């Protein structure tokens, strides 16, 4: 408890000197000076790292010594905090965000999920030149949306070391839910290693952070369960692909400390409530590499927004949040007791944790972590394919071990014979052979939360649940389909689209100005990829017809085929990439040019 008292005293000399404007209502509440009990519209907030109110905000970027989880660290800081303060804007404002680079290297800030002019998007080399040391760049854009978003550096690997923060936009009109109080929950994965060293480790030794490989003990357990032949065959298949069935995440809790609002599980950041209140939790996954499964034992959570956009409410017990996604959930604790906010990393190597409590200094039981899951056979390029009928020759197509160093196709399985998997045609095909807008593609698995989730254990959010209130403005059917494969060479840690890394492609992907197109993403790899398009929404075709939800980041599960409709109304050049930081850096990045 001594520790938690430290973090509830945010009015430090540092804060006074460096983050004067960050003296938000949250810190006052934490000090107990003025309880921030909500007004009827729930405009109070508590976020651990201060608040910068718009429309005019000044942010100073530094690299400095700051304790993280009680240990000496040198994160990137924004106005003296790491992760940075919450920026709060209002729909309809003209935002003016001045970012001053006090580093000895270039930096940038990207406003994740915001629809804005291409030169304000903050991606060095795509939208602007970046912010040089000593320079101040002033971002100006009209705020034309509302909801829960975030911001982060788009320069090198800076984001890994805390160069990120929440970006909340208050709605101009009444939102489709009511609440008494809100809290922002920013999830990040911190490492005390140099991110360049992490990247080198990944490149030189795939599985470097993966200490959960199957062991000889597991082998005998499998033999008991499945028999020797099946076990040996399964092992053989994984070995052929130079992969492990336990490659759930590249970078794991062996180096990561998972943080919630910048605080470790032991520090136990506390979000306050009064029994009987309805509380909005704005959950942001600002991690570099980590997916989380979030739950609050004892409380039902009602999902009311995804990626900042309102969705028809879905009561759940748990939800998986991919890197860069955001979800808004409502909870209504009726008892004057503490609840654990538990965010377990998808690979089960660790967790972030906070406490929802009526008073400071309380704690509830921390749930037992689930065991690591094995990648099932569905991960092996399961584009709606039945694996039981997979012959040996099919498997040969997935043998990556004989790929030469010059094989630029990487793990591109597009040549693979999918054995009639596409024959499972939907009845809703249009005359031109394309599916009607909003229909789920064959090979999608929108009714599954993903690896390591037992659908019978608790009610878990799935993409199929996400449903808009009203149709989005552009009701046109797609004029064309653009199919991109997510590809990778695990062993050399090369990640790419269509087998080509960013450095290997000659030009951008072209969208015709104002066209309506369908983007089909086929994951040929064995890992989840959160794919983010800048500048335009992606309407996820999850089978909800005209009420499909729109998102800025789509989680594509291994072997899955996912589609989204895009209205290419944002002229200019935009980044399009996997939001796993090291995958992006390794080449899973493209520029989309709308002209």
């Amino acid at each position, binding site marked *: 408890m001594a520790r938690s008292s430290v973090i509830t005293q945010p009015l430090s000399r540092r804060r006074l000197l460096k983050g004067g404007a960050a003296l938000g209502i949250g810190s006052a509440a934490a000090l107990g000076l003025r309880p921030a009990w909500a007004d009827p519209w729930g405009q109070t907030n508590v976020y651990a790292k201060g608040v910068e109110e718009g429309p005019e905000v000044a942010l100073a970027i530094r690299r400095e010594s700051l304790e993280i989880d009680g240990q000496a660290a040198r994160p990137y800081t924004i106005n003296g905090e790491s992760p940075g303060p919450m920026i709060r804007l209002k729909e309809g404002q003209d935002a003016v965000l001045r970012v001053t680079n006090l580093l000895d290297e270039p930096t940038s800030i990207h406003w994740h999920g915001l629809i804005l002019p291409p030169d304000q998007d903050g991606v060095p080399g795509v939208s602007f030149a970046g912010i040089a040391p000593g320079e101040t760049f002033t971002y100006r854009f009209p705020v034309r949306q509302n909801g829960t978003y975030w911001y982060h550096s788009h320069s090198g690997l800076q984001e890994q070391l805390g160069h990120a923060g929440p970006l909340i936009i208050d709605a101009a009109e*009444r939102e*489709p*839910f*009511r*609440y008494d109080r809100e809290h922002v929950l920013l999830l990040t994965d911190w490492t005390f290693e140099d991110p360049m060293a992490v990247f080198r480790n990944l490149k030189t030794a795939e599985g470097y952070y993966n200490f959960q490989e199957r062991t000889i003990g597991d082998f005998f357990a499998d033999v008991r369960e499945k028999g020797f032949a099946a076990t040996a065959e399964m092992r053989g298949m994984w070995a052929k692909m130079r992969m492990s069935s336990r490659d759930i995440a590249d970078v794991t809790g062996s180096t990561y400390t998972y943080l919630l609002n910048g605080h470790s599980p032991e520090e136990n950041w506390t979000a306050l409530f009064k029994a009987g209140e*309805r509380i909005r939790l704005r959950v942001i996954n600002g991690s570099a590499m980590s997916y989380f499964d979030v739950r609050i034992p004892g409380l*039902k959570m*009602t*999902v*009311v927004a995804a990626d900042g956009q309102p969705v*028809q*409410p*879905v*009561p759940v017990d748990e939800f998986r949040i991919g890197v860069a996604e955001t979800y808004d959930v*409502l909870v*209504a604790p009726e008892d004057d007791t503490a609840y654990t906010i538990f965010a377990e990393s998808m690979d089960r190597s660790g967790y972030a944790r906070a406490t929802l409590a009526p008073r400071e200094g309380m704690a509830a039981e921390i749930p037992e972590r689930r065991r690591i899951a094995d990648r099932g056979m569905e991960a092996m390029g399961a584009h709606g394919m039945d694996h039981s009928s997979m012959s040996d020759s099919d498997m040969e197509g997935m043998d990556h071990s004989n790929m030469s160093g010059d094989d630029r196709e990487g793990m591109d399985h597009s040549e693979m014979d999918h054995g009639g998997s596409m024959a499972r045609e939907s009845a809703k095909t249009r005359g031109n052979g394309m599916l009607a807008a909003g229909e789920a593609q064959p090979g999608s698995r929108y*009714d599954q939360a993903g690896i390591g989730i037992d659908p019978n254990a608790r*009610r878990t959010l*799935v993409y*199929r*649940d996400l*449903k808009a*209130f*009203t149709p989005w403005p552009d009701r046109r059917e797609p004029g064309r389909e653009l199919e991109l494969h997510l590809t990778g060479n695990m062993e050399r840690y090369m990640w790419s689209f269509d087998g080509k890394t960013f450095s290997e492609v000659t030009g951008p992907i072209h969208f015709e100005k104002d066209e309506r197109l369908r983007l089909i993403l086929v994951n040929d790899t064995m890992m989840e990829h959160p794919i983010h398009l800048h500048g335009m929404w992606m309407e996820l075709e999850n089978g909800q017809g005209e009420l499909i939800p729109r998102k800025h980041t789509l989680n594509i599960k291994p072997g899955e085929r996912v589609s989204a409709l895009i209205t290419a109304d944002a002229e200019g050049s935009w980044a399009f990439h996997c939001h796993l930081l090291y995958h992006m850096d390794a080449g899973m990045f493209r520029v989309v040019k709308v002209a």
Partner: protein
Amino acid sequence: MRKSLLAITLCLAATSALAAGEHGGSHATAPDAEVDRTIQVEAGDMWFDPETLGITAGETVRFKVVNTGNLKHEFVIGDAAAQEAHREMMQAMGDSGHGDGHDGHGGHDMAEGAHGGEMPAVTIAPGDTAELVWTAPADVESLVYACNIPGHSESGMVGEIQLGK
């Protein structure tokens, strides 16, 4: 089917047992003489206006519920425990057709109330108005009105009826 269910519900709801409503219509569901007053309630996405009601015990009220939202809503009167039981039932029904919680809930208007009876309820399509005639009981201090379609009351479609003497 829905119309007849609604009519049955209204019959059960109205103390006069003369009620016969038509879905979406604004026909009188009880003779005016039996109704002490009419209360208009707006059901939006996801709220009721007003958020609290004060009703005298024994008073017979005609609720005129207008759905101004984009989704189907319901207006159910009961105590908090019965409402919770109703929600759980609807969630279970919705989950059987995974992820379709908003559509798979036929027949729920006959929600079981805490005292063995049914809770008065109407379901209102977007843009429609439905009526419910109800006499406030004398033996409780407060009741809850809610929309128990999964997620709706959790999002704020819930209000309190203070029953004064």
